[in-house]
């Protein structure tokens, strides 16, 4: 197998091919072993500096990236928009170039605007890793989701995955659709019609509006949070109604006649899209996703850093 990624940056899953995903997963297997050692650190990236630029709030992605970078022995600087000159009117390129002037090799960026990572990759001289750009893509989340499915079920190919919830505002959904299709999975989306993008079928995805039918069909349900913060208008009458129509509870799962895998990218709104007993059930792999996130991000950073020549 080819040992090098076909891309220079990780801007989205849509730029990757199947070999890239296989290579990332194989490398992640090695790092998963590393992070379960008594001493969870390797010196590979000791001369690499990484800047984490978060122009939008994040808890677990930021922690996961920072931990991944530190486990690889990289030097890490953190930046969040709330405490920065962005508020004073500085442009994105200026902000990033100022940071790069301090000799930074890799930029991990989350930004509220779609395409911010692609834009930056064309204007600055550093490796860019997209940690979420608006409602567009969140590639490392999709990679860790697929990795977790593969770990649990042995393969992604041929598996039936339903993505439930707010598809319209979800970068996790789009990246997951790209990643799952690339690996040969069947994908359905399920949610209120107002929260399903109009042309989603053009991605080779089916739409299901009945949660019970969707769950009966699938092997894996990836449940998304309703992103109230991105909603400028009302997309459904009330949270209670959403929960009644699309919430996943123990009773629905017990009546399926099979055990499906439950995933959630977090943060969970317990009692809204998923009840507590489902989130904590043994068929839920939510915390495995978090653990795998560190290994997968280590793999992505390692493989991109491998391309940096001095």
């Amino acid at each position: 197998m080819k040992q090098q990624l076909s891309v220079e940056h990780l801007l989205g899953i849509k730029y990757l091919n199947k070999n890239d995903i296989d290579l990332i997963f194989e490398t992640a297997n090695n790092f998963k072993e590393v992070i379960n050692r008594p001493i969870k650190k390797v010196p590979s990236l000791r001369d690499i500096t990484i800047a984490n630029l978060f122009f939008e709030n994040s808890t677990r992605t930021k922690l996961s990236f920072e931990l991944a970078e530190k486990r690889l022995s990289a030097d890490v600087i953190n930046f969040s928009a709330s405490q920065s000159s962005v508020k004073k009117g500085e442009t994105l390129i200026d902000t990033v170039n100022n940071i790069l002037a301090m000799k930074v090799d890799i930029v991990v960026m989350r930004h509220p605007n779609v395409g911010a990572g692609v834009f930056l990759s064309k204007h600055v001289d550093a490796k860019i890793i997209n940690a979420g750009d608006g409602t567009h893509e969140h590639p490392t989340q999709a990679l860790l989701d697929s990795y977790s499915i593969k770990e649990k079920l042995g393969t992604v190919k041929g598996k039936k995955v339903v993505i439930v919830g707010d598809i319209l505002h979800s970068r996790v959904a789009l990246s997951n659709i790209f990643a799952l299709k690339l690996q040969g999975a069947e994908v359905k989306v399920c949610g209120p019609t107002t929260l399903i993008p109009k042309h989603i079928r053009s991605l080779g995805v089916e739409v299901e509006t009945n949660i019970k039918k969707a769950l009966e069909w699938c092997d894996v349900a990836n449940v998304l949070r309703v992103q109230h913060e991105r909603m400028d208008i009302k997309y459904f009458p009330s949270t209670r109604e959403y929960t009644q129509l699309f919430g996943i509870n123990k009773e629905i799962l017990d009546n399926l006649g099979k055990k499906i895998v439950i995933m959630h990218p977090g943060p969970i709104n317990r009692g809204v899209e998923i009840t507590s007993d489902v989130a904590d059930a043994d068929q839920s792999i939510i915390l495995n996703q978090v653990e795998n996130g560190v290994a997968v991000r280590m793999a992505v950073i390692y493989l991109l850093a491998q391309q940096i020549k001095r």
Partner: protein
Amino acid sequence: MSKKVLLNSKEIDIILHRLACQLIENHNDFSETVLIGLQPRGSFLAKRLASILTYDYKIKDIHLGLLDITFYRDDFRRRDEPLEATNTQIDFLIENKNVVLIDDVLFSGRSVRAALTAIQSYGRPENVELLVLIDRRFSRHLPIQPNYRGRQVDAINEEKVIVHWKELHSKDAIYIDNK
């Protein structure tokens, strides 16, 4: 290109038994000793020695681990070909143990240097020894010498020592290849 046989399978078998005996001399019942094969190529030698110790010399409970050193190498990003990682399988701690690192060919010593760093992730060993099948003299970049060696070879730098294991290549053999 010519390929010369350095050791045939019979000679390799004799050497492996000698190395096993030398290990027994220093490590008795192996209760405080762990064998660590360096991935990928040292693992064949390590497994072979472990099986000789277990079946021919009836030593019970040999601790055998396989260590991948890819992430500890000093030539990351400095070579043309990307590095390929393999698995590490060490399911025990090496705290206060006698560690024997095992590799097929000792050349520059850089892999062993990386292994010495890598092994620290599993605890602080009591001491560390090095066993190699082929020790190439005059080619070291670092002050590293083996404690146990199968055969010492004076090969010039352009020559390549190629180890074939029957698990991979149908028979055991070691060649010197001068291009």
